């Protein structure tokens, strides 16, 4: 051990970024924006068989003002687009976005007049999850990817 072993009282040295990121990545509060069948799959992610609370992201908030992880699960129509944008804008920084499934990521097979061809036309996306709908393991994989991304961040990057 380094500095700690030379002093009497027990403590650890680390960086502010490491502590903040450690706290953030294991206490993600998801805001589920479920508009289609992917939201049903998300129920599987949260409930006991797959249990996303093992990754610290089980506290689903239905108010964007209390959430820092936006899960967009399902088809976003042009009419719904401003609502999604508003929900994203209402979330406090720092915030991350997962685009779950084919529809949210690319419009899916709804290549038509009414559907947004991928939510990245509207808001920044951190992780895209493939599948129609994705399996719960994939969604947990996306949350782990978000955690990896958080651990690489600098606290000063978020204003």
């Amino acid at each position: 051990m380094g500095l700690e072993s030379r002093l009497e009282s027990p403590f650890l040295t680390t960086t502010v970024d490491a502590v903040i990121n450690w706290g953030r990545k294991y206490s993600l509060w998801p805001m589920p924006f479920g508009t289609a069948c992917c939201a049903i799959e998300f129920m599987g992610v949260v409930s006991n068989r797959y249990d996303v609370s093992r990754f610290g992201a089980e506290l689903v908030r239905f108010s964007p003002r209390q959430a820092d992880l936006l899960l967009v699960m399902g088809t976003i129509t042009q009419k719904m687009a401003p609502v999604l944008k508003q929900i994203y804008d209402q979330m406090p920084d720092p915030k991350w976005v997962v685009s779950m499934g084919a529809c949210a990521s690319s419009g899916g097979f709804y290549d038509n007049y009414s559907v947004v061809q991928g939510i990245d036309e509207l808001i920044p996306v951190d992780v895209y999850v493939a599948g129609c709908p994705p399996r719960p393991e994939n969604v947990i994989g996306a949350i782990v990817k978000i955690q990896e991304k958080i651990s690489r961040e600098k606290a000063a990057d978020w204003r």
Partner: protein
Amino acid sequence: MEQAEISRKVQARFGERIVSAGSFAGQHWVIVRPADLVEVLHFLRDDPELDMNLLTDVGGVDYQGFPDEPDWRFEIAYQLQSLKQNYRFRVKCAVTDDTVRVPSVWQSWRTANWMEREIFDQFGIGFDGHPNLRRILNHDDFEGHPLRKDYPINKRQKLARPAEHLLTDDPEWA
């Protein structure tokens, strides 16, 4: 009563005013002009033997470019059902083009209110006497009518307005 019998009964009652009658897979229909539509529908509803008290659906069809293109461009199909007798029957209204206005039947079946709005939204057919003929599925800034055959399949129309008018409690938007 078989659907064929209902069809014969309607044809006997209205004669020349029925444009044509047909059937497919045991389902029968009659085609009428907009001027006769309300009378035919009311006959099906008010006849004690038929008693078609439920309008299950109203849908539109655009026949532009159809192999057997009829003399009219659009059809509006009214799906009627009698809950008491368990009869079903279909009445189609031949609409020559989008300048023709079709009488609204929302006063007879309240369900017609939103269904007629949907047809107006998707096909651009106007309904006379409708209390609130606005778009219902597409956003209000949408231009054109997407279920028409001449609507460009790749055309995209984005809603650029903020969401306030969608999230409001104002009954005007409810």
